[in-house]
């Protein structure tokens, strides 16, 4: 059956089962929409460093900004994350937090009221750690009042109200902190280093996205003046003793069972490990992604797509199995298993093509409305096409296996025993006449 008549039969059969096919097309379209957006977003972030597509690219992530920050801001090193978790790692000359939006601090679990970050120098009420790093950051107000600058050494005293003992320690000023309503800025290293950073070629705009998310998608075209538009150099912090803040302790950061990253406990427990890449080469960035949080989140997203793929595969299986009687009728009329398999493959090609085109149009419309790029990376398209081929072949194989059953009477009654094993037995051994006969029993 190789003529136009066959094509017509495919079309008529498709129409007869159109409700199921429309559902399949819809699921394929939505899956492609999500997949293409995800692909465009990942590609965009990876190659251009811009997170413009992020706020439609990862609807799931909108409510998990810490993931988004992890994704989009390589500048936040493990040290930053360690600091974010309340681990004090202040090092002279090492910039950790450059500019931290309040939203990000919140998302990261940074307690802006953490005594050691902000009020250490309030000697009347402050908390003086007995161990740990000997560097501290001071507030900009205190720096101005005391005429202090980075590198100065200060003696801090504190009277323990429980024991009535006075404790004193000498600290080196390693940073100056300024905080306003929306932003906290902790510059370890002081104004000189900030000015040095300003000379660097590029800084990212992760905070813009966070700000959009937090403020109901308000678009901010330009960053606030204090944001330094420079890319931070990757600075590997030396292994350094640290202590765990009460906040981190409360959250179990110092749990020895917890994963660590570069010797530093992950503040996000086992959810996401920090993203670290600072190389100019995209290849290096990808390699870094493989090791870090992007891989974790990609794994989650991949799992999500696998689940959708499984749902689609089962839908196709049901669509084909639902046609058992008609498949039996076709077989009685002389259609071979190959022809029946081809008929269902052809129908699924229609579904896959229609679903993909619909999904693509939806993607373009959404991207244009939101003023986003419409480029879908080649890898996304290749993987998608592969999935569609697998889906189409799967449907054809189910129909082939179904019609290959020699007991056509059961087909006509609609109660055929489906040979599941044959679905995966793609290299069947040659069957002799006796075995063939016993197959029919």
């Amino acid at each position, binding site marked *: *059956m190789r003529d136009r*008549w066959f094509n017509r039969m495919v079309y008529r059969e498709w129409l007869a089962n159109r409700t199921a096919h429309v559902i399949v097309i819809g699921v394929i379209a939505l899956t492609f929409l999500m997949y293409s957006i995800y692909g465009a977003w990942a590609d965009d972030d990876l190659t251009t460093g811009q997170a413009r597509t992020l706020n439609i690219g990862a609807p799931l992530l909108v409510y998990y900004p810490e993931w988004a920050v992890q994704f989009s801001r390589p500048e936040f090193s493990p040290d930053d994350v360690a600091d974010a978790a309340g681990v004090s790692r202040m090092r002279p000359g090492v910039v950790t937090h450059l500019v931290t939006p309040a939203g990000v601090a919140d998302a990261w679990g940074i307690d802006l009221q953490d005594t050691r970050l902000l009020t250490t120098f309030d000697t009347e009420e402050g908390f003086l750690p007995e161990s740990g790093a000997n560097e501290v950051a001071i507030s900009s107000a205190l720096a101005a009042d005391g005429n202090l600058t980075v590198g100065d050494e200060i003696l801090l005293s504190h009277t323990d109200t429980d024991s009535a003992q006075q404790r004193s320690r000498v600290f080196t000023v390693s940073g100056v902190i300024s905080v306003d309503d929306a932003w906290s800025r902790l510059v370890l290293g002081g104004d000189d280093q900030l000015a040095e950073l300003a000379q660097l070629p590029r800084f990212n705009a992760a905070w813009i996205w966070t700000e959009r998310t937090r403020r109901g998608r308000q678009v901010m075209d330009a960053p606030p003046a204090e944001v330094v538009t420079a890319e931070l150099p990757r600075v590997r912090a030396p292994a350094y003793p640290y202590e765990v803040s009460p906040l981190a302790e409360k959250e179990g950061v110092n749990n020895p069972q917890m994963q660590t990253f570069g010797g530093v406990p992950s503040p996000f427990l086992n959810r996401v490990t920090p993203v670290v890449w600072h190389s100019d080469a995209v290849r290096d960035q990808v390699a870094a992604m493989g090791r870090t949080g992007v891989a974790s989140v990609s794994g989650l997203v991949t799992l999500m797509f696998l689940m959708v793929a499984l749902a689609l595969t089962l839908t196709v299986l049901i669509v084909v199995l639902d046609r058992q009687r008609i498949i039996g*009728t076709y077989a*009685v*009329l*002389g259609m071979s298993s190959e022809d029946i398999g081809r008929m269902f493959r052809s129908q699924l090609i229609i579904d896959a093509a229609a679903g993909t085109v619909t999904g693509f149009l939806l993607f373009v419309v959404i991207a244009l409305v939101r003023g986003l790029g419409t480029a879908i990376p080649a890898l996304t398209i290749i993987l998608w096409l592969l999935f569609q081929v697998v889906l189409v072949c799967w449907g054809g194989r189910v129909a082939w296996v179904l019609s290959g059953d020699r007991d056509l009477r059961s087909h006509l009654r609609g109660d055929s025993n489906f040979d599941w094993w044959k679905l995966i037995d793609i290299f069947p051994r040659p069957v002799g006449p006796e075995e063939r006969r016993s197959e029919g029993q």
Partner: protein
Amino acid sequence: MTKDKSTDFVLQACDVSKHYRTTAGEVRAVKEVNLRIREGEFVAIMGPSGSGKTTLLSMLGALESPTEGEVLLQGRDLGRLRSRELAMLRRFQLGFIFQSFYLVDHLTAFENIRFPLGFNVKMEPGERDDRAVRLLGMVGLADRSDHFPRQLSGGEQQRVAIARAMANEPAVILADEPTGNLDQRSGNEIMDALEDLNQRLKQTLVVVTHDEQVARRARRLVLLEDGQVMEDRDLVTDAADMNMER
């Protein structure tokens, strides 16, 4: 019974048995049945419900395989054929008529008849259309060609099924209770049509029925009971003998 590979017999069942495994145990639906059908014969297989007549017909039409024994169509053992060869056989050598018609719901009467003709590569597409139209006329449904099965009466649907079974001029037409779902008038019309096929075109017909009136239309009657052939008689000879006696 020895099998005869000559083409004297268009269809043969040699010691054919069919067993089913059910939760209640093994059911022996057909037990060592032997049957030889010559070309142009009109055979009725009759028996009470559960006697195995539909199972026997299904095995004769390669819709299911016998547990034991062999079925030969024009000398070819159906059990030794590959599924593609069986498909070819169903296209060109066998025609089926079912009690439930089994028309393709989303195809019109014309398209249902045209469907099996689609396999016939020896014919041009135009010829196939012409033949489908001729067959529709033959069963008296020329004016119903664009109707879908749901728009046709039971009798009309069965006539479409007959035309469809005839499409590729098969060696044998197997009919399973062709009048079972029809009223008496429609049933008579269908049997008239089948009888006409047999007499005019010498079409070999095997009809399964539990209706004595239907069975009496045949030239040969095979009586099945409890999966076994109880009686196999030539109704034409019987009728002649009865006339002689009178």
